[in-house]
């Protein structure tokens, strides 16, 4: 029964809690009714679940801030890849559903696999507004995990129109209405201006190239959406998938894109109770670059392709307003899926693989294509190196988040392997020997000695993803008031040998315990309880008259949609355990200037 009440004591573990500056100190963690507390009364201790974590590594539950786990493109990936499913199946148990899929698992398997690996919070990286219902349906069916979804707005007709007209207030009004209407968490911007052009079989190649019809440039969209983001005071900054993604030489585009928001002030106005942390749990960045690996390419073509990570990292090392996630490539089967329709078409032209492409009317686009990253491939080997360089060459771990852009660069279940490379130069050297020689010849990775410590690992997999997306008020740390989400790895920090690479990977893959809200959900990789997760979304407000004005425009153009206006919003019943985050008070609502 104790496990069910969510009251627990984790005794004597070596705790890594970077937001509280705790670096392996031996410490007890107390959780009462799902929340971390400074202590428990002796009566409460009697009923608490007690876990002896002596000689073990204790961290906050893992937080994935960029993963493709719900929605139409994810499901398209499942539908077009039966071969991904029949070789990766999971039998039902008394507690859990059956499931299948390796690169794109079914929602149940996805939830179990994340929890078994020590993750308790996962955010869907791209929710097209029109597909929000589908996205929420899949999140509702995903067990255990706390989730939310970023809304894709970078090629939205209304946003493009308002920003072209210079009407930033209406753009803010539209964004706030859209987040509330579709229960979205933050703003995602995918190949701004380019995906709209893809409707006419084109793309944009530079930040100052206006697109067709709307004649708005990527620069105007990035700046405009970032301004809207800070005007509304959203918990997360603008989340950017840069232009020219996947093209040789694109690191300059990425750097120039990150410079656009330079000098803006990060303003998280969310009205929340914040758990206690020693470091500020509020984000500093005004732009969060997605999957930097895909945007850190040097060279001018695939023939002289090389890493541009060192150049990109040099810029990021100089500034304090940027966070990236890595989008690393751990080799093996993947399913690329993105809202960047033209980038996916480029991949199709290179590989000839099966390919799905979608236009999301008035809003965005999407493409899906299976891909196998091979060590024998020169380009894939460099991509592997870049995915590690972006994590290792950016000095401050508070600017990086470890991901594989699941399932684009690799699969989330490969995180343990990825961490092993980050924590052991020997692991990198061993793999480089198996790769095409371009891996080290065309990157700086071979000369990088840095190895992440457990403390840094906790930053890039927990504290920083939570802080970057504004969830550190309750996630990513173990201060009083935080959610009782804890991962206990069977790793004794005193005897950690990162060069015993297979053992390290195995221990990271199967933590001794995954605890969510004070309850054990997984033990040694086995799911032992299946609570329902929460669904987070933001509720920003603008001035009522401004919103009315904006809605007139929306209704006027709704004739171009194939859905009726009344059917557009996501009804409340689509969310299980919704947590609405109030973003600004009426007094702070965005007004006409």
């Amino acid at each position, binding site marked *: 029964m104790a496990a069910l009440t969510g009251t627990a004591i984790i005794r004597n573990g070596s705790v890594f809690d970077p937001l509280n500056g705790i670096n392996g100190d031996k410490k007890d963690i107390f959780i009462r009714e799902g929340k971390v507390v400074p202590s428990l009364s002796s009566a409460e201790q009697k009923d608490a679940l007690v876990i002896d974590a002596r000689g073990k590594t204790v961290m906050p539950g893992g937080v994935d801030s960029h993963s493709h786990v719900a929605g139409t493109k994810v499901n398209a990936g499942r539908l*077009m*890849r*039966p*071969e991904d499913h029949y070789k990766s199946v999971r039998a039902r148990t008394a507690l859990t559903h059956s499931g299948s899929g390796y690169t794109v698992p079914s929602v149940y398997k996805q939830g179990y696999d994340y929890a078994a690996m020590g993750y308790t919070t996962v955010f869907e990286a791209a929710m097209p507004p029109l597909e929000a219902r589908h996205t929420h349906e899949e999140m509702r069916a995903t067990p255990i995990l706390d989730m939310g979804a970023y809304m894709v707005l970078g090629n939205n007709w209304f946003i493009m129109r308002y920003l072209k007209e210079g009407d930033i207030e209406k753009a803010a009004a539209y964004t706030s209405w859209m987040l509330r209407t579709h229960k979205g968490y933050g703003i995602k911007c995918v190949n701004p201006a380019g995906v709209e052009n893809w409707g006419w079989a084109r793309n944009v190649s530079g930040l100052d190239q206006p697109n067709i019809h709307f004649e708005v440039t990527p620069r105007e969209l990035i700046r405009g959406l970032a301004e809207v983001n800070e005007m509304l005071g959203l918990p997360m900054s603008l989340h950017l998938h840069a232009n020219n993604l996947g093209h040789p030489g694109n690191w300059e585009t990425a750097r120039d894109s990150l410079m656009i928001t330079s000098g803006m002030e990060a303003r998280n106005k969310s009205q929340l109770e914040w758990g206690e942390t020693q470091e500020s749990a509020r984000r500093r960045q005004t732009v969060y670059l997605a999957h930097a690996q895909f945007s850190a390419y040097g060279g001018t073509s695939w023939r002289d392709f090389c890493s541009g990570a060192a150049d990109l990292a040099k810029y990021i090392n100089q500034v304090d307003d940027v966070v990236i996630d890595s989008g690393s490539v751990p080799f093996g089967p993947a399913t690329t899926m993105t809202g960047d329709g033209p980038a996916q078409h480029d991949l199709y032209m290179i590989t000839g*693989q099966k390919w799905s492409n979608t236009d999301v009317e008035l809003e965005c686009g999407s493409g899906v294509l299976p891909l196998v990253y091979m060590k024998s491939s020169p380009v894939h080997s460099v991509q592997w190196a870049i995915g590690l360089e972006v994590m290792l060459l950016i000095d401050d771990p508070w600017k990086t988040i470890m991901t594989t852009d699941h399932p684009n660069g690799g699969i989330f279940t490969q995180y343990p392997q990825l961490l092993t490379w980050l924590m052991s130069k020997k692991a990198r050297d061993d793999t480089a020997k198996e790769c095409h020689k371009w891996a080290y010849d065309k990157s700086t990775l071979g000369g990088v000695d840095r190895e992440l410590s457990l403390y840094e690992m906790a930053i890039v997999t927990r504290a920083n993803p939570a802080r970057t997306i504004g969830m550190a008020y309750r996630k990513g740390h173990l201060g009083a008031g935080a959610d009782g989400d804890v991962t206990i790895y069977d790793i004794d920090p005193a005897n950690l040998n990162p060069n015993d690479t297979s053992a390290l990977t195995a221990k990271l893959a199967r933590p001794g315990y995954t605890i969510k809200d004070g309850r054990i959900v997984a033990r040694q990789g086995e799911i032992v309880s299946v609570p329902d997760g929460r669904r987070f979304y933001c509720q920003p407000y603008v001035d009522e008259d401004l919103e009315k004005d904006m809605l007139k425009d929306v209704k006027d153009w709704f004739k171009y949609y194939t859905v009726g206006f009344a059917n557009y919003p996501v009804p409340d019943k689509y969310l299980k355990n919704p947590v609405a985050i109030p973003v600004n008070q009426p007094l702070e609502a965005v007004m006409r200037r």
Partner: protein
Amino acid sequence: MAEIILKIREKIGIMVEAEAISPESFAGKGKEEIEALLVWQGPEKLPLSRFFDVEASGPSASPEETRIIMQGDLSRVKRIGEGMKAGSIEIDGPAGMHLGAEMVGGSILVKGNAGSWSGREMKGGLLHIKGNCGDHVGSAYRGSWRGMTGGQIIVDGNARSQLGGGLAGGQITVEGDVENFCGIRQSGGMILVRGSAVRGVGAEMNGGAIAVCKDILQPSPGFVETGREEDPKLGEVQLEGRFVKYAGDYALSKNAKGTLYCREV
């Protein structure tokens, strides 16, 4: 040498998924242990003895030294010998779908007909079907683009459609006829059809070779004649007579590397 005989007890209703029937899983096991091996039938997991009378003779042995003999109508028993690496299976009658799928080594001999997906994604070994077989022999499974990569399939009778779909290596010989899309998306390996084919031979192929020794009723449009040859040699196989040689499939690629021989009419 261990010899295990499985005799079917009665006609099987819902198809049985019997990947447990392979030299690897039988090796070193006695009669009772083999009888207790579990197979799926619909939603239920049942012991082999529910469907078969088991006789085991000889000392327990390694997979290489294990010979399995199956008797009766096995057309509703799927996945026999799936993934097997060594040893042999002899089937005295018809066999069901996915026979020898993903097999790596050893041999399977079927005296009757075999179902669809026989030798699917096979990697090595020998699969010999004395009778006819169904669709997708030696091909990739749904969604996958790589079929058989090694080994040999011999069909003494006819095969139906999509034989060798996605073939990337190994060799398939059909003494009789094939139907549609033989060698679709083939990228390597070799297919020899002693009889005729209906249509779509080598559609979207970009490597490997196919020979059809009689007619192709409707040739694929993306193939271009590159010459005519007397008694050409296809790998190790010597063909007899005059053949037209084609390259293709240009419908897929400007740089098509597939080769197709068809008997000159």
